[in-house]
């Protein structure tokens, strides 16, 4: 009769969903729900996938080490197809269905901007791993990021172009419907002209475009030394090809939107030798970086790009803050879902506010993408690295401090 207890426990398991529905779900394990939204499909799919992988790695590590005070973190991931309207829908769904204590995402600033106001009004802390447009964290005091912002990034590219490469006359081709690209173009122009350089011309395209020859023809007629393309990898590869086809010989410059293994696949030889600013370099000898690359490679069988590293860092900053909040047992209870006595809405609100305060206090956090300290504007103060695109991958060129 030894199987009898087994049988009865099986029967108990089958009844569990029913119990849960009755509100008495005592046997369900406690868990902390964190939401995540990103472009898992769509034009910038590698952004969302890399970020999700980075976050997954951090979450698995946390849960393997016992979670937050013994409670595991469950990540709820929604795809927004890289579209702002879908980002808002995805986040509404997460908020209403999963009641998360915090949300991670997005990469593209336009999408973060679409979802941030929803999280702000609901009092749910959001950490964007890699949205660099300044407007993102201006949405409210619950919105954070673990990356540098575009005024700094645009300035870093401009300084690199002017000081290190000796470029004086640069043309700009920007995606007019991406907040990220428009902002970056503006900040590059500000710094570059202040240094003494001139902007040969500025042209625009839309994210859905694939033919840039008209804009390139009028830009190249002004004989720029280099082209600054503050767009995303899908467009940049095509732009580089078409510019080379039209006889352009100079270098291309860009920002962290270039960071994807797809860049060289689309751009081919045309993009090789170009420079862009990024959050970290794969060939950085720092043991923290190399350790991360090794773990990531073991799990996903590819080298992590900057977005994976930022995803990893954003999750770890969040979990660090959670661990702080969970030191107060009452707060720890309110953070988790499915506890024997479900937290009241007020208690959860308090826990989320405490979590926000803890994230805001993050200082000197040793991340893969550098030391992260959240400033008063809820942005991370970090150096940028300039990398060069080569056939073997991105090579570190120099680091530019804030």
């Amino acid at each position: 009769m030894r199987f009898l207890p087994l049988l009865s426990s099986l029967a108990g398991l089958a009844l569990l969903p029913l119990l849960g529905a009755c509100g008495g779900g005592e046997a369900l394990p406690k868990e902390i729900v964190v939401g995540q939204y990103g472009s898992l499909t769509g034009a910038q799919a590698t952004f969302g996938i890399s970020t999700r992988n980075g976050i997954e790695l951090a979450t698995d590590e946390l849960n393997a080490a016992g979670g937050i005070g013994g409670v595991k973190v469950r990540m709820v991931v929604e795809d927004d197809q890289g579209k702002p309207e879908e980002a808002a829908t995805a986040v509404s769904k997460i908020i209403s269905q999963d009641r998360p204590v915090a949300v991670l995402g997005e990469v593209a600033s336009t999408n973060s901007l679409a979802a941030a106001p929803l999280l702000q009004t609901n009092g749910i802390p959001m950490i964007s791993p890699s949205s660099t447009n300044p407007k993102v964290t201006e949405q409210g005091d619950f919105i954070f990021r673990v990356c540098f912002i575009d005024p700094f990034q645009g300035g870093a590219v401009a300084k690199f172009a002017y000081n290190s490469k000796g470029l004086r006359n640069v043309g700009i081709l920007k995606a007019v419907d991406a907040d990220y690209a428009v902002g970056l173009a503006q900040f590059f122009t500000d710094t570059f002209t202040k240094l003494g350089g001139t902007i040969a011309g500025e042209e625009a395209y839309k994210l859905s475009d694939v033919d840039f020859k008209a804009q390139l023809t009028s830009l190249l007629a002004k004989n720029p030394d280099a082209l600054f393309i503050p767009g995303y990898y899908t467009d940049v590869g095509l732009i580089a090809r078409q510019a080379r086809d039209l006889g352009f010989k100079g270098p291309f410059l860009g920002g962290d939107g270039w960071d994807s293994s797809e860049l060289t696949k689309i751009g081919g030889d045309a993009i090789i030798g170009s420079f862009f600013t990024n959050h970290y370099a794969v060939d950085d000898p720092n043991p923290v970086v190399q350790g991360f690359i090794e773990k990531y490679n073991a799990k996903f069988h590819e080298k992590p790009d900057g977005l994976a590293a930022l995803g990893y860092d954003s999750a770890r900053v969040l979990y660090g803050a959670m661990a702080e909040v969970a030191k107060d047992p009452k707060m720890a209870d309110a953070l988790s879902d499915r506890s024997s006595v479900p937290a009241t809405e007020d208690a959860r609100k308090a826990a989320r506010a405490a979590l926000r305060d803890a994230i805001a206090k993050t200082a000197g956090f040793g991340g893969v993408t550098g030391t992260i300290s959240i400033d008063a504007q809820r942005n991370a103060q970090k150096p940028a690295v300039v990398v060069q695109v080569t056939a073997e991958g991105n090579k570190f060129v120099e680091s530019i401090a804030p």
Partner: protein
Amino acid sequence: MTVFFQQLINGLSLGAIYALIALGYTMVYGTLQLINFAHSEVFMMGAFMSLYLARWTGADQNPTVASVTLVILGTMAFCAALGMTIERLAYRPLRKSGRLNLLITAIGVSMLLRNGTLLVCGPLASFPTLLPAAQWQLAPGLTLRSMDVITLAVTLVLMVLLHHIVERTQMGRAMRAVSHSRDAAALMGINVDRVIAFTFALGSSLAGAAAFLRAVDMHKIDPEMGTNMGLKAFVAAVLGGIGSIPGAVVGAILLGLSETFVSGYLTSTYRDAIAFCLLIIILLFRPSGILGKHAPEKV
């Protein structure tokens, strides 16, 4: 002046691609009075088929004349079959119901194909170089790319072929008859179902050729690539006079040129806004399109 000619080349090669797609819209409209929204997805799936055919024939590693020809013909055949299948399964059963039902079905088919492709083929694929990518420096600042020459040449050959089919063959005459009056054509013993299926096949195969050319030139394909191109081609068809075959070509070339020259000489930021304003102005003066017939509604 070199900039002007460069933009002319850019605009013509863009217009040529629009033309190949616009023909599919206009021919289907001519026979069925249906705006076939799934046409842009036929174009998109043609690009993915090109990729798989290139891998299958080994053209992606070692493009030979034979294998590349096989890829382009295979893509056109695939698109023709796809167009006919869509017509047979989605449109024919609804032909007796209202035009609005057909239109909504077309949108549904378009979404199904787009999301299905996303599910099966993934969000983005890079496309191999299948055609020689040479550039000729005609003057300082004036480059002629081999892709532009090939695009224009292929488009021209297909136009001549299409003209021959429509004007000189039995099936072409039947197509024109059905487009004139479906009921009268049926009374004269024309198999209307076959003619409509043939029209779909013909238009879709042209979209297949456009997809191949586009994919080779752009080196990347994605399930969303049809949406924008389809919209532009549809506008080109309306501009030229929907239902008119030469009209679709004229409208497409005009749209390609106006987009290119607006972004080259005025402002690339408001390219679409200005280009489309021009089109609205043209349509104000010629409501049935440039070469469209002014047909009063039959009562």
